[in-house]
């Protein structure tokens, strides 16, 4: 198992994702002799997990069952313990494509936060790319480094505990793409430019919840000579598939002009397969500003 390559069977030391139900997944560190509590009962790692194929159904002690899935960055995003607010798959997918990430890309990111986007980037740039990620909070930097090791992706990433606005990303002239998710991204634009490769075509993305931040960032990008500056937002809409039953009204027997009475229809409802939106949806995550670096 690793977050950048599939394997078939669960092994001691793997990180697996236990799927309890829609909207309920949890990460599990697989260990010989260990146990995991779930609402459906206990999962015994040695008998229930180790050696079983990923995707297996596991029956827990209380009789209920769960599925054990191979980790992917998408499942990790939903399961990971939050140390900060994180980026969700919808934004991550857009960022990945708009930054033109692919195997071999060199990427700089700040702030690392809880590592949600980091895992997605690593998956995309493996096996030949590298991620330089900067986090100014010491404990968070340490925690995410631990996770990268557990997830067997640490060879693809360098974590630096520093302030990107003051000290930059720690590399110069190498990055194909930069991602900024910090309170004052305009202060890091100059450092971003320095970290990027000299040739034109490098891509930058800044994620900000507030429009004022976006305005200041766009101004900084213009000042630093960036091109193709573009701000957008993307929102996910889920459609819940439902069967609904709609009752038919009874207007009384149908009286025709020739006086013949027709009996009202004998079915009282119509069944319909449709989708309904959730009651509330996330209406805003943040604005994504993209730009291209010209040749320097």
């Amino acid at each position, binding site marked *: 198992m690793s977050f950048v390559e599939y394997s*078939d069977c669960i092994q001691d030391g793997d990180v697996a994702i236990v799927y309890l139900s829609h909207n309920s997944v949890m990460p599990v560190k697989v260990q010989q002799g260990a146990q995991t509590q779930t609402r459906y009962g206990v999962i015994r790692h040695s008998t229930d997990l180790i050696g079983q194929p990923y995707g297996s159904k596991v029956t827990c002690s209380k009789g209920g069952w769960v*599925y054990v899935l191979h980790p992917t960055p*998408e499942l990790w995003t939903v399961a990971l313990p939050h140390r900060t607010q994180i980026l969700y798959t919808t934004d991550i997918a857009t960022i990945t494509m708009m930054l033109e990430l692919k195997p071999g890309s060199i990427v700089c990111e700040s702030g690392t936060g809880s590592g949600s986007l980091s895992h997605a980037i690593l998956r995309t740039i493996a096996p030949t790319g590298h991620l330089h990620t900067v986090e100014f909070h010491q404990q968070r930097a340490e925690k995410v480094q631990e996770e990268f090791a557990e997830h067997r992706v640490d060879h693809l990433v360098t974590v630096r505990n520093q302030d990107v606005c003051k000290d930059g990303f720690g590399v110069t002239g190498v990055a194909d793409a930069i991602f900024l998710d910090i309170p004052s991204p305009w202060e890091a634009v100059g450092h971003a430019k320095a970290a990027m490769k000299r040739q*034109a075509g490098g891509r930058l993305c800044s994620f900000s919840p507030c429009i004022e931040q976006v305005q200041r960032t766009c101004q900084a990008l213009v000042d630093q000579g960036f091109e193709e500056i573009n701000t957008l937002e*993307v929102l*996910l*809409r889920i*459609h819940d598939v439902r069967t609904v039953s709609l009752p038919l009204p009874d207007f009384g027997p149908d009286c025709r002009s020739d006086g013949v009475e027709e009996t009202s229809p004998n079915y009282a409802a119509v069944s319909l397969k449709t989708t309904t939106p959730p009651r*509330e949806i996330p209406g805003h995550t943040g604005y994504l500003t993209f730009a291209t670096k*010209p040749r320097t």
Partner: protein
Amino acid sequence: MADNGDEEYRIQQGDYVVLKRGDIFKAVQIVPKKKIIFEKQWFFLDNAVGNLYSTTFEISSGGILQPQKLKETGNPSDLKEAGTDNRNIVDDGKSQKLTRDDIETLKEQGLKGQEIIQQLIENSSTFRDKTEYAQDKYIKKKKKKYENTVTILKPSCRILAMMYHGREPGKICHLRYDTLAQMLTLANIHAHSKVLVFETCAGLVLGSIMERMGGYGSVIQMYPGGGPVRAGVESFGFPAHFHDTLHEFPICHVNALLAGELDTTAKDPTAEEKLNLAADEEQIQPEAEQQGSPEEQNMETNAAQDQEKIEKEKRREAKAQERKVKLEEKRKKLAAAAALLEGRNADGLVIASRFHPCPVLMTLLKFLAPSRPFVVYSQYKETLIECYTKLKEQGGTVNLRLSDTWLRHYQVLPNRTHPVLLMSGGGGYLLSGTTVAMDQSKPAASQRSEEPAPKRQKDYHRPDREHC
């Protein structure tokens, strides 16, 4: 490392590139002396060779490209004379003194875009009454119309997806680029995996998947009809070795393969030869008739006639040999693809076509290993509702989600920041999920219904950003 390692960033002969002006893109190949038409202008790409990608060129007379000098700083309207609002500006269409002919004359005189705009400003009676913002907008509009530049870009999934969506959405089933982005991520496309693709999006989806796999792993394109459509893949300009990872398999053989009855071994060579010979005979008959005019025949000596017979025989054999080689290659490819599929251990499945997705999905899912993602795109929600329902009945999948994305662009300018006026009406729908081990003994009623109960008190208090 000065400019030495720059080759991969330089435009070469034969490269597949993308032309760009503003928001308009066009994919072309660099071919010498070929006239390219883009945005109502024609030019040759010969001069582009040797320049760096992302260079902007000016189109000078004769269709010759010249790299643009450094950005011309300072707007023409450094006049600083501006009005405060439009209460006195009457739009009678008469404020511009230059006529269309005048402008054409200026163009013919070889005036550059910037200079034409300067002329337009000077000849506009209302320009100095406009507010600064209105002047800005006016200049931007004229720039768009009169600047004759083109930028040459290296192709990428992002650029090609935006191009197809803007130019020929019908060819890609109206797949919007952000929807494509979602598909690539939800299907966990990455290097060293084995991905099945069924698409009728001109090869855009296939090419995007190949880009994200970087030449590692394998992609098997399942195709309907006679052959796989891959025009879009060419536009990506992949290095040759990427094509080694690309396989194809005709869906007309899928049922046979699933039943274990597909025979991809070498066929009896003599039987094929006979078929080919018969075909050859038919071809040669009309030839023989043409040559058979008596007067000419008598002129030739017998030796010459024999020589001809030998030549004919040689040609026939050569053709037959060629055909044999081609058929053998085809068979080998089919066998290779079948071998990859037989294990039923593919890592991902992506479907995006004009075909009804339901049968495609239900059949191709069988080739996926457990705990692997799949994504189905459809222009229409109803087809995915059907897929969802069938999957629920059958079991073997979890985390099913029917979704679409809402995309909005913003204009960000000081004191003029707002969403852009026009917005995409829709980008298609996605059904995504993960396979799991198929339940051998399926209970009559599943343990938990996946449909949330109609009334849930919990939701009211949910502060998180996103439900998953």
